[in-house]
């Protein structure tokens, strides 16, 4: 499975967390994601996601003047979005502890075999 496929659904939650921190515009979000270590995804994929989240009323946007060039679209969380973020964090924590558990068991048994040989 490619990283892009694994990221589906996770990036949404990460975007919500980034927007929660402070009002941001698209390029800033992509930079933030990259600084956290998401290197392999195409930055433009955040726009379809933002459109969907806006349709689902998780986020809202306002146009603001910028010093360089045309107006930027800044995103902020709605109450519904905050709730979704909370749910995402919970779901992620359950998921990651399960996945970690599976991997831990796997390395123990694998390690055991290696000891025997």
């Amino acid at each position: 499975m490619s990283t892009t496929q694994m990221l589906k659904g996770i990036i949404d939650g990460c975007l919500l967390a980034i927007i929660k921190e402070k009002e941001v515009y698209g390029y800033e979000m992509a930079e933030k994601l990259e600084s956290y270590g998401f290197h392999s995804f195409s930055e433009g994929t955040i726009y379809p996601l933002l459109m969907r989240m806006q349709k689902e009323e998780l986020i809202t946007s306002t146009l603001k003047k910028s010093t360089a060039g045309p107006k930027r679209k800044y995103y902020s969380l709605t109450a519904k979005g905050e709730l979704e973020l909370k749910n995402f964090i919970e779901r992620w924590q359950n998921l990651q502890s399960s996945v970690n558990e599976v991997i831990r068991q796997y390395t123990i048994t694998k390690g055991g075999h290696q000891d025997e040989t």
Partner: protein
Amino acid sequence: MKRELPLSKKSQNFIEDLRIYLFSSGKQWDEIEDVINELEIHLSEAEKNGKSIEKIIGKSPKDYMEMVSNEMPIDYRTLFKSICLIIFGAFSFKVFSDLLAGTLSYSLLEVTGYLAIAVIFIAVVFKGFKYISTISQSNIIRGVLIFVISLLPLLLFLGVSYLDKMISTPTIHFDNIGSFIIGGITLLFVIGISIWAKTGVLIIMIALLTLPDYFLNLTALQYETQLILSMLISFGGIAIYLLILSKLEKSK
């Protein structure tokens, strides 16, 4: 006010392709401009930081366009409006030019043929432009495809008139009064649709395409001169009209 962003040719082409793709997918104009603006800003900032366009939209522009398109609702109202404008435009143009040349008479084959042409043309335009926006950047291939698409209705029209001469189907002839009534109804339709769609494009196009012919016919000029003059006035007029429209759009 819109300020131009510094963008590489490749990014500019991609943005234009995306616009055509979304438009021919029947998306709403405002929403298209919205997402395009955002992407333009993103691409320009990314380029300033030395990132390639692939880093932004991935390896396949087509996949990316599809992804964006899937998140946008289809604007059936605008789609319906454009289709009505094209169909009524074609029909009223035919009625008016026939009316200025004499009384009206249409065979069953002509009427169904014209309807079929309108449907085929609309389908081909939307599918064709969507396809053109996703193929490689070769301008020659694109040019040829657009040429074929714009030639298609003409060829189909010729085909229908040829068939009409070969096969005789029931024909309705209108006398003077009948022709005038049909003309009046068509005129009302054209005005009504123009008000509904809030555009003068139909009226101006029809006037530019039919009136020069008619008025030149009244003059004592030679037939060839008339033909050339009428073409010049029609296409020159349309060109000027489109130029004014784009100027108005830009100054918004």
